[in-house]
């Protein structure tokens, strides 16, 4: 009789109510149950909940809470959302701008992005692409020897007046002849230790090796008795020597430019112990000192550049290591290899390595070619014309900074060696001679090390490298696909996944970088939301 309670509560309709009443009339037990239910219900209704309190406090709390109403909190949340979204857009924009600039440079050069190798090339492709886009041979009019020696003389090449007096040096090129122009002096004074190349935008501080020189403990000889003002016009290399911590270096810098004699007598004076620093460089009337300075600098430049083998031509004073990767499909592999060897030889180049796999239905020859940089473009064109060009990637690596730095150090050590030799000639004390010989040995070791590095760098700049793959038959990878659809699909998927990973990685990095901006808002929003709940 589940309706019994509902009957008591008056929740039944008329028919149900009548039905229950019929039962009640005939069932005494049911009547008793109804009475007991009523008694329970009546007793329950006597529940005492006490007199309410705390309404005033509630009103205060509600007013207080209304100050930070839900709408205000919503505004904060909305603001945080907008801010975070803005930051995310900014990060994405920055990311795309950065990647976009790189890709446009690639496109202008007609370079094909590769997924393997050549990473160093693409990194500096912007530099190399300038020649490729121009589509012309590099400037052959200016030998590196001259430019290079100017650069290492520490004259600021960005000074247009300097280039005017250099005689044939392109404007804005790596350097001008030291001391050739009056205008170059202030520039040299402003940046005595720096070697600057305008086009590369690299400012190399040749004081770095000088710091190393301090460690080597350059011996001290004659005391420094001349006023400092005399050492005003000094080159970068000389500044290096000066920074070596040797008083002799300062001494040499002072007396060497003041010499009125030709450069052939420059070091002779040191040998004979004569101090020719009687002329004053600061005296504008003393023409002899100025001409001696110029002559000394020229002599020094020539002396240093004699140690540099090869004269790689350079574009605007930038040393570029050119690299290329090609895959060419040919009909006859053996003939193609022979033609390549002959063609490279005709361009004054050579083959450094060659591996050939020739089978019945397919074959591949992998060759590493070195060609003079000036013939790089010609070689690429000719190699591409040997058959069906499947892929071609070219690029450049800027080694200007490395070259100039090493050269400056080499010059510094050459001077040091010369100075020590002069001292050795003058010294008769046996102990002192032993000490000087030891120092000379160190200087020579350093000089040779830097010379080797410079030689290596210049060799890289002089000869470009081409990795050529000549393929025949099935080995050839067609640009439209290899025919193996599953392999192509897998390769494509891997590449795409790699790209997605790169993008996700970049976004993550940007997100972390911008975290100090957006994270506080997100945390604040989270706290507000939690409180609201």
């Amino acid at each position, binding site marked *: 009789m*589940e*309706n*019994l*309670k*509902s009957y008591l*509560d008056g*929740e039944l309709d008329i028919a149900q109510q009548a039905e229950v009443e019929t039962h009640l009339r005939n069932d005494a037990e049911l009547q008793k*149950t109804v009475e*007991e*239910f*009523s*008694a*329970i*219900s*009546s*007793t*329950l*209704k*006597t*529940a*005492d*909940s*006490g007199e*309410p*309190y*705390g*309404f005033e*406090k*509630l*009103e205060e*709390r*509600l007013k207080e*809470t*209304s100050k930070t*109403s*839900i709408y205000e909190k919503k505004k904060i949340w909305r603001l945080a959302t907008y801010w975070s979204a803005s930051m995310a857009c900014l990060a994405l924009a920055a990311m795309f701008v950065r990647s976009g600039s790189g890709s446009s440079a690639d496109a202008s050069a007609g370079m094909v992005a590769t997924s393997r190798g050549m990473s160093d090339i693409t990194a500096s492709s912007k530099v190399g692409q300038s020649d490729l886009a121009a589509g012309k041979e590099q400037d052959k009019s200016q030998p590196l020897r001259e430019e290079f020696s100017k650069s290492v003389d520490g004259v600021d090449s960005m000074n247009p007046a300097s280039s005017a007096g250099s005689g044939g040096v392109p404007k804005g090129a790596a350097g001008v002849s030291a001391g050739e122009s009056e205008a170059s002096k202030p520039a040299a004074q402003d940046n005595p230790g720096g070697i600057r190349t305008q086009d590369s935008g690299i400012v190399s501080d040749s004081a770095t090796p000088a710091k190393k020189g301090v460690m080597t403990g350059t011996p001290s000889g004659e005391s420094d008795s001349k006023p400092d003002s005399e050492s005003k016009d000094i080159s970068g290399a000389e500044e290096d020597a000066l920074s070596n911590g040797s008083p002799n270096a300062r001494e040499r810098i002072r007396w060497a430019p003041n010499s009125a004699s030709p450069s052939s007598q420059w070091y002779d004076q040191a040998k004979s112990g004569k101090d020719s620093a009687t002329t004053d460089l600061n005296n504008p009337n003393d023409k002899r000192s100025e001409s001696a300075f110029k002559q000394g600098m020229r002599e020094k430049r020539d002396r240093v550049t004699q140690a540099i083998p090869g004269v790689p031509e350079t574009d605007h004073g930038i040393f570029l290591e050119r690299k290329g990767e090609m895959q060419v499909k040919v009909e006859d592999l053996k003939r193609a290899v022979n033609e390549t060897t002959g063609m490279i030889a005709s361009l004054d180049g050579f083959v450094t390595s060659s591996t050939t796999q020739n089978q019945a239905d397919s074959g591949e020859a992998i060759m590493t070619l070195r060609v003079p940089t000036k013939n790089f473009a010609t070689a690429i064109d000719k190699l591409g014309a040997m058959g069906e060009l499947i892929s071609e990637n070219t690029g450049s690596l800027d080694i200007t900074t490395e070259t100039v730095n090493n050269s400056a150090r080499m010059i510094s050590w050459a001077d040091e060696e010369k100075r020590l030799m002069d001292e050795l000639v003058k010294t008769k004390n046996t102990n002192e001679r032993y000490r000087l010989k030891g120092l000379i040995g160190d200087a020579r070791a350093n000089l040779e090390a830097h010379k080797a590095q410079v030689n290596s760098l210049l060799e890289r700049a002089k000869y470009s490298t081409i990795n050529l793959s000549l393929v025949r038959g099935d080995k050839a990878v067609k640009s439209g696909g290899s025919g193996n659809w599953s392999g192509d699909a897998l390769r494509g998927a891997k590449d795409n996944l790699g790209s997605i990973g790169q993008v996700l990685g970049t976004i993550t990095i940007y997100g972390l970088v911008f975290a100090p901006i957006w994270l506080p808002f997100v945390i604040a929003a989270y706290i507000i939301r939690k*409180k*609201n*709940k």
Partner: protein
Amino acid sequence: MMLVDHQQAMPHVEKLDISQLAKQHYDRVFRFCSTRVGYHHAGDAAQETFVTAQRSLSKFRGESQPLTWLIGIALNECRRVNRNNQKAEQLPEFRDETSHEGQLINREILRQALSKLSDEHREVVSLHEIDGFTYEEIAQIAGVPVGTVKSRLYHAFTNLRKSIYAPETTATQEVN
């Protein structure tokens, strides 16, 4: 004075004022809380109920009466208070009525009988008999159909009756 626009969510209630709601229903919410968490905690529980309601005002869809909605919040608040105080749900106190002396049951016996009920049955009994909610309102508060409310109420009363008028039988049943 905080007004919430419920024109879209609640067409029949354009503006809902929490202060007005508090004035109208505070006493009832307080009594509801008092029977569940005890008189001393009832004030805090009732206040928290309205503060929570203020925060959740935008979520009120107008599908039930505001009081029913408030009681639903209060029910959760009472559970939270009891949980924090590590206490079971409080049993209501009963006044010492003399006018119906012959009909009324001993208060302690009734409290014991109530304590023997399941939570669901006790909740339905409290909502209907003590708080005076209709079956429909109880169904909305408890989130169950009206038929379930009726059934629970009948079985709760049957158990109460057995506990009060035939305790031995109940004990035997419990053992079984």
